């Protein structure tokens, strides 16, 4: 990973983390300042999808050129995306506890998130079940592409085509965050850098994980 991207990630974190805790936010009755979770929870999902997209790109590249490095990168990105997904669910549950008074409800987006995580856990099970490295790379790339495309359709596109009765802001008649007229732009100034920061940190984590796994594989091959 390029050094300037790492510097950008660290700089963005130095801006985002203090601002997420201390910056001015839109204070609503009852909800108080729970909207601060926007910088942690919502950004996790954005970053997760970007990481998964990158993983699928590596998967396609593997199928075209059969370079095992591509498979290792794809795996590392999926692992980090899975971690982000779990953090997204936990932060979302905490947020839901304070806004909807429950940790889990029958909400299409919650179920979509849970099912995405299940699909990628199945990806891990599939990988673990194939001993031959070349075969494992090939099959998991195929499954990854198939699952990602269908997940995007089933979880991102399908719920937006219909009047889903979601509790999430901007859906089912709920006001979106755009309706908070006060401080709207101030919050954007933190929200977008937060997406950038978490995504870059994700790529950095994936890069480190890939390098560790790659070196382990090489040392096993030599010994």
């Amino acid at each position, binding site marked *: 990973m390029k050094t300037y991207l790492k510097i950008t990630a660290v700089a963005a974190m130095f801006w985002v983390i203090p601002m997420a805790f201390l910056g001015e936010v839109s204070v609503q009755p009852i909800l108080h300042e729970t909207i601060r979770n926007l910088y942690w929870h919502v950004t996790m999902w954005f970053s997760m999808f970007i990481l998964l997209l990158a993983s699928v790109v590596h998967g396609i590249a593997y199928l075209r050129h059969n370079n095992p490095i591509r498979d290792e990168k794809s795996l590392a990105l999926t692992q980090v995306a899975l971690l982000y997904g779990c953090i997204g669910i936990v932060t979302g549950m905490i947020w839901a506890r304070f806004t909807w008074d429950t940790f889990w409800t029958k909400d299409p987006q919650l179920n979509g998130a849970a099912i995405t995580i299940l699909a990628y856990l199945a990806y891990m099970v*599939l990988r673990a079940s194939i001993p031959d490295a070349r075969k494992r790379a090939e*099959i998991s790339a195929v499954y990854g592409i198939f699952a990602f495309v269908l997940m995007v359709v089933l979880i991102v596109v399908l719920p937006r085509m*219909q009047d889903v009765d979601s509790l999430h802001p901007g859906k089912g008649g709920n006001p979106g965050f755009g309706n908070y007229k006060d401080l709207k732009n101030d919050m954007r100034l933190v929200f977008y850098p937060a997406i950038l920061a978490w995504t870059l940190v994700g790529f950095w984590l994936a890069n480190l994980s890939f390098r560790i796994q790659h070196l382990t594989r090489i040392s096993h091959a030599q010994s």
Partner: protein
Amino acid sequence: MSSLSPIWTWMRHEWQLELRQKAGIQGAILYVLVSLVVAYQAVGEIQESEVWVGLLWIILLFSIVNSSSRSFASDSPGRKILLYFWLQPGQLILARMFYQMAFNLVSGCLGFAVFCLLMGLPGGHLPVLLVLVAVGSSAAAALGTFMAAVASVSGNGPGLSAILGLPLMVPTLMAAAKGSLFALQGGVSQAWMYAGMLLLLNLLAVALGYLLFPYLWRE
């Protein structure tokens, strides 16, 4: 794909094999019937449409998982070699997907008929319900067939294909269940929209399977 006729030939072949072995087809039908009877014993006639829809799709889901996961499981090494030389990979996956889609479409509709007989039909628009059952079952069957292929190539049994397929089949059938709920409660136009989306999902699953299967089927 050079022509469609090998696909059709293989589909007919698959059907003949199924008739000759008998155990597969009888097992699939018995599976649906037993789960219907168990559900009937447990719940009886249903008035609330949510429960009706939920139970219908759970029964259909497991019957689809059961039958589609068999589609690559019974290939002996000899038959694999025959298929390898006789059909192009795209033709093989299309034949198997179409066969499973047709099979589950029919068994889904039969299951639906028995379900209505036992549990009663709490109002609703019958044609759109039937279309939803048909397109929902066939979409889930296409996904299940591809996952059966993945599980078979990876050297695992049909157990893995259920683990791989369920996360994708569940949202598909939840969309079908949502559409059925609309159909029961009078939202016929929304129900048709769901049927259209499921039809598109069928096409997407078949197209992805056709594009990706050649990478699985090369050794």
